[in-house]
């Protein structure tokens, strides 16, 4: 994070002698608080940045609920839930890395950072499995949307009519009278989908894709922190970068906390 420009500090009260205190700050506390306000403003910027996608989601879901009720069943709830748990665990270790840094527990801090990075890679791995399935099965955006099977079924069940699913979904075709279209799927079977079902996948890939980019950015930040931690740059008086990175990481978690129910858990 660029806002980490506020360096770490040294708690000693000797003005002008503290190598970690930038020349334009009066005290380590002032420097720390400035950095903290800076990172919070950065997070606010992130919230508004994501808000565009949440707005698109809300507009399309409110106006075309049938698309969402139909298409979300192509997603794998189990993988989504596991990924949620993985991110929550990484948030825990991120928060703990701050505590360890504050208390001077160097090895614990490094361990927490490593676990955080590992969880982030785990999240991306699971995401990769999900994406690969969708690319394979034609569950894509726009004109590339060409599903090989009806939701609830799997590749090998292609050819069945929309499978009987949990109650409440059976009426989805009635909600959009005259608005259902039929897609030729791989030349063998017809999958009937509500009009513009591809919009769901446009939004799905836009939201999870942007979130995934933030996870990658988080990994880069944490690898950088790990390198600095191994050099022994952090301690009870100098942990601002660890604290600010954790705040960013929690925001990435926060976004996913909303994405999971909005995309996977619709009924």
């Amino acid at each position, binding site marked *: 994070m*660029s*806002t980490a*420009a*506020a360096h770490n500090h040294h708690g000693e009260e000797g003005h002008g002698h503290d190598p970690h205190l*930038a*020349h*334009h*700050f009066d005290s380590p506390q*002032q420097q720390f*608080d*400035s950095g903290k*306000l*800076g990172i919070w*403003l*950065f997070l*606010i*910027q*992130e*919230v*508004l*940045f*994501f*808000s*565009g*996608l949440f*707005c*698109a989601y809300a*507009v399309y879901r409110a106006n075309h609920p049938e698309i969402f009720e139909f298409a979300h069943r192509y997603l794998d709830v189990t993988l989504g839930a596991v990924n949620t748990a993985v991110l929550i665990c990484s948030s825990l270790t991120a928060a703990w890395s701050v505590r360890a840094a504050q208390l001077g527990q160097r090895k614990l801090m490094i361990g927490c950072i490593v676990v955080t990075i590992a969880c982030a890679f785990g999240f991306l791995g699971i995401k990769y499995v999900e994406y690969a399935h969708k690319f394979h099965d034609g569950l894509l*955006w*726009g*004109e590339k949307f060409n599903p090989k099977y009806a939701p609830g079924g799997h590749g090998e069940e292609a050819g069945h009519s929309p499978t009987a699913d949990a109650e409440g979904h059976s009426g989805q075709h009635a909600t959009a009278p005259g608005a259902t279209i039929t897609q030729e799927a791989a030349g063998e079977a017809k999958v009937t989908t509500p*009009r*513009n079902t*591809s*919009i769901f996948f*446009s*939004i799905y*890939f*836009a939201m999870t894709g*942007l979130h995934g980019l933030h996870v990658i950015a988080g990994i880069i930040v944490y690898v950088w922190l790990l390198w600095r931690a191994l050099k022994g740059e952090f301690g009870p008086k100098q942990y601002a970068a660890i604290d600010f990175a954790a705040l960013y990481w929690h925001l990435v978690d926060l976004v996913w906390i909303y994405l999971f129910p909005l995309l996977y858990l619709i009924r």
Partner: protein
Amino acid sequence: MSSLDTTMGHSAPSHAEDNYLTHAHGIKSWLLTLDHKRIGVMYLCSTVGALMLGGVFALLLRTKLLTPGPGILDMSHDTYNRMFTLHGAIMVFLFIIPAIPGALGNFVLPIMLGAKDVAFPKLNLASYYLWVFGAVFFVTAMVAGSIDTGWTFYTPYSVTTPANGVIWATMGVFILGFSSIFTGLNFIVTIHKLRAEGMTWFRMPLFLWAIYSTSVIQVLATPVLAITVLLLTVERTLHVGIFDPSLGGDPVLFQHFFWFYSHPAVYIMILPGFGIISEIVGVHSRKHVFGYRFIAFSSLAIALLGFLVWGHHLFTSGQSALASVIFSAITFTIAIPSAIKIFNWLATMYKSSLQLTTPMWYAFGFIVLFVIGGLTGLFLAAMAVDIHLHDTYFVVAHFHYVMVGGTLLALFGGLYHWWPKMFGRMYNEMWGKVGAVLVTIGFNVTFFPQFVMGTRGMPRRYFTYLPEFQAFHIASTLGAYLLGFGIVLAFANLAIGAFRGRKASANPWGGATLEWECSSPPPHDNFAVTPTAHDPYDFAHLSYDEKTDGYVARRS
């Protein structure tokens, strides 16, 4: 710091040995500087370069419009479309939005606060390079197929246009957006955390209130533009269909996204201008600013209300009647804080010891242009009238009055006000006034005929026109030449002053804000001893000193 052994403070020498310009030498000391003053100067040079580029496009367009059809430049429609798009996009994203916060905000803000620098100097330099990077993308867009969408990039045209520069331009906007966000972030933290002793919120100069309000908009609104242009880029490359109606998307939603940023953005353009005019009117009237708190709070009110009115750009775009009525009603309320400022400036001038200096001439010009621009905005906020005037030259004239009148005249006013501080030298006062008059007259000759044309039905962005509009177009073009000449003259006068002018004292105007307490130009660390802030518009303790041709403080 070792450079602080010189004595500076209230009775600063008129020209310090060590100042930020002489502190370090070589091109590298500029390109890698973390000093907010040098970054401000770099912003100034760069954004003025963008202004010149956009201005050349404007003059070419106006020259073509002397006659209907291809005209004396033998310009094709495609070239015309690309040129007005580039004019708009370059002016908005590379000049108007970054110019005042980037140049004057960076230079003046920390000094006014009594701070040594902004809170995050490295981030500040990064913001500048993001600007440069964004500008490179724009130049690439110009050569790689150009853009002909208008600066608003409306879908679905922007998705299908054969002009292939669109992606370069949108990515340029994305990058420039982050430059703007980080500048705003930096200023907010600086104002919150780095105020000098005694600098309470209500002792802050009004320029800082304006910059603070601007920064709030930059942090809250710009990310939405970033996601909008990002989605547009994805739409054009991958055809995701969120904004493309042929894939089930909603082009009106794009306009909601775009204007959620771009309406608040017009206040990013005008609020710093308000701040500069407040400073100029206070200092050059030699009288305490009337209604300080009202001016301060009206900046915040404009910043917040600005978020509630974006739908007035969509009156004819298929927006629902319900939303249009609500947006129209809220739009009218913006007139209240704007008028508060105008009336308070006039009340400040009333029975004051008004000094007819160059900055004051620009302030006059600003007030005239802003009143015309603001009042015509009310016409456009009324839905029934807007149906008639929408997409005509009336709209073009209106937003040039507020955006150009707002930013350009305020920027000139601010530069002429702070130039002695920035470079330690005075400019030629007579030529300064001539420039101010030429710019103001040239501007009105250019754009007033456009109001008339617009009400008579001349549509904007049209390549050609009916013969009945030719007289207005000729007047407008002649005005544009005059305006262009005035702008060049005004900058030339400043540039000559910076090199050849007589040396300026620390406080040539008698300002009471902190930047006038350090020497001209300021030393590298701004203040040897952190000053104590007092009322920024209490001029009673300042008296003129003939020896230095400046004002000195006689505080007991």
